[in-house]
């Protein structure tokens, strides 16, 4: 009985289980069950399969949960932190401003690139778009590991523009927020290399690349990246200008002729 009608009903069963059917569709489906109770068996089996797989996932998660450390370790850690902070304060040479004051601590998930279709409904959503959107959802839900898998999938299977540059940019943002600056740098560089016809992605790639490079102390290279972000003359122009000034100061380079100073409000 493998005909197109049955296939359609089986797709509806799948949607029913996933909570994607409206009231009318649900009642229509039950009418089908009344006519063909074998399809109700299929629904039952799928509900059981779903339950079983969800339980397996829960079991794996609970088995891999982190064991709690004994209380004394937390006391020891707290004491160590206090000693370190005191020593750092003691030996610190005060400067008027610190470079890290100019560097981004965390990049907002709002900076992630999703499908253009989200904003322009007339555009068709491709698989790569869906993967980017799912990656965004994963980041919002705190599942960065899953997000990285999804962005890697885009890179592996849809490495054409604009998907490649978006996926690398997003990957870089996630890695930056996890303080894995070296991997983030590679991702931002890939994004900047791939991007075509998108000043926004270029700007983000160079700006975040510059910030990541500062985090690992590569100030000369950081200066070049920040300068590129500045020259793109977009949303990061002002912070890029301030960061460039600070970098030039710290690098002992007070020559401002290399970049055109904007008027800051």
């Amino acid at each position, binding site marked *: 009985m*493998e005909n197109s009608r049955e*296939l359609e009903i*089986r*797709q509806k069963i*799948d949607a*029913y*289980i*996933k*909570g994607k059917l409206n009231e009318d569709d*649900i*009642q229509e489906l*039950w*009418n089908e*069950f*009344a*006519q*063909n*109770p074998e399809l*109700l*068996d*299929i*629904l*039952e*089996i*799928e*509900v*059981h*399969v*779903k*339950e*079983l*797989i*969800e339980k*397996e*996932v829960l079991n794996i998660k609970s088995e891999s949960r982190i064991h709690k450390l004994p209380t004394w370790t937390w006391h020891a850690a707290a004491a160590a932190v206090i000693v370190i902070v005191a020593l750092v304060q003691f030996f610190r040479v005060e400067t008027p401003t610190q470079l890290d004051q100019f560097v981004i601590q965390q990049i907002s998930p709002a900076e992630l690139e999703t499908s253009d279709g989200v904003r322009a409904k007339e555009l068709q959503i491709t*698989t790569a778009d*869906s*993967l980017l959107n*799912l990656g965004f*959802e994963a980041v919002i839900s705190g599942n960065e590991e899953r997000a990285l898998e999804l962005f890697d*999938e885009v890179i592996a*299977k849809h490495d054409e523009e604009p998907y490649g540059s978006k996926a690398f940019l997003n990957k870089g943002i996630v890695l930056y927020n996890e303080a894995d600056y070296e991997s983030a740098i590679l991702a931002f560089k890939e994004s900047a290399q791939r991007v075509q016809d998108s000043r926004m992605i270029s700007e983000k790639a160079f700006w975040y690349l510059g910030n990541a490079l500062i985090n690992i102390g590569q100030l000369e290279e950081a200066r070049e990246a920040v300068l590129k972000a500045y020259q793109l003359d977009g949303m990061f122009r002002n912070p890029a200008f301030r960061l460039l000034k600070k970098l030039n100061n710290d690098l002992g380079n007070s020559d401002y002729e290399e970049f055109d100073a904007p008027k800051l409000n």
Partner: protein
Amino acid sequence: MDYSKFVNAVLESDETTITKQVNVITSVLVKFLTVRLDADFHTAQDCAQNTLLIAIEKIRDDKLTHPDAVINYLFTTAKHEYFKQVSKDREVKYEDLPEHHSSKPDQLKRLLDDEKMNILKRCMEALKADYKKYIDYWFQNPEYETSVVADHFGISVNNAWTKKHRVINVLKECIEKKINF
């Protein structure tokens, strides 16, 4: 299930066919009431039986003949019977009962059965690694469009559906074999 046969059996008082068909319809109605209205099993069974008695009467009076009309009548009457039952209970213990019955989402978990679950577990363990991986991915990512699953496994969307149905069919056959063993 052919409802015109059911109508004929009622009109011809073919008790063997009626009993056979009534068993099938009762099972569907019970599941309908438990899943859609969150009815408890015994209430659902009572309501399903009442529904069939009323429907048979209607068919005998020649007021219900078309198969589609029979199906719609069965579901509508089953719902009506259930609400009647709940209202009756409410008169007795008004304060214990919730005010609404229809606002709950469908309780598909009510279809779960421990015995079937244990059998299914054994069937899943016996599943080919390729099928297991596929069905795990399908149900672990319910938010994915089929195109995403298809892409992940490097197959077309049509083949993705076909493969999913094939795995479910394999599991269905396995469960049936083990139940009938």
